[in-house]
């Protein structure tokens, strides 16, 4: 079936370095994607979104890249800080109002 998944379950980076978190999706009909951050014991928190008619979108310290050719989504975090440590999920929507979440990547920032 269709699925959203992540290449790596864990990622450790040094404070100040850039982080790249990857996500693969399989439904070419998906037209809207969101990256969420989930800190321990909390609900998912919106980071950034992108529509399928875009290749790149930038926010504050974050950039999302969408490669529709290979059905790949990435989240780049610049100058990673300890507060960025969390699980990051990509989510796609391709039918109605249902978001489909990936399994998540746990980012650990090493001070």
């Amino acid at each position, binding site marked *: 079936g269709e699925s959203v998944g992540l290449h790596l379950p864990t990622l450790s980076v040094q404070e100040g370095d850039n982080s790249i978190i990857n996500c693969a999706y399989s439904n070419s009909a998906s037209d809207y994607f969101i990256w969420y951050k989930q800190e321990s014991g909390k609900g998912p928190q919106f980071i950034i979104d992108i529509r399928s008619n875009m290749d790149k979108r930038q926010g504050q310290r974050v950039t999302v890249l969408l490669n529709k050719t290979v059905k790949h989504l990435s989240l780049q975090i610049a100058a990673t800080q300890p507060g960025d440590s969390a699980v990051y999920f990509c989510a796609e*929507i391709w039918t109605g109002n249902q978001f489909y979440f990936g399994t998540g990547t746990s980012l650990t920032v090493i001070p």
Partner: protein
Amino acid sequence: EPEVTQTPSHQVTQMGQEVILRCVPISNHLYFYWYRQILGQKVEFLVSFYNNEISEKSEIFDDQFSVERPDGSNFTLKIRSTKLEDSAMYFCASSEEASGTGELFFGEGSRLTVL
């Protein structure tokens, strides 16, 4: 900043008991959702609700689940006869617009433990 609030934060129940999880969505939002996250797993869609009726539901949302908006502010998820596998974090979410056009705001979650 407006937020989605959920109660209780943690509920422990015996298998077979009924549970009601409560949510207060952001006041001007029109679309409401319940998601579930089993420990260590991904967030799974359960149901979406708009205009006082279910708009979509997943395979997980079987006959033991129901949702209700009993008044102008609350949105509830009822599990009629809980099973061990219902143990999970349940997240309520709301959005101002349909998901394809707007951001989903999540609550902090209600942890359900079924013994």
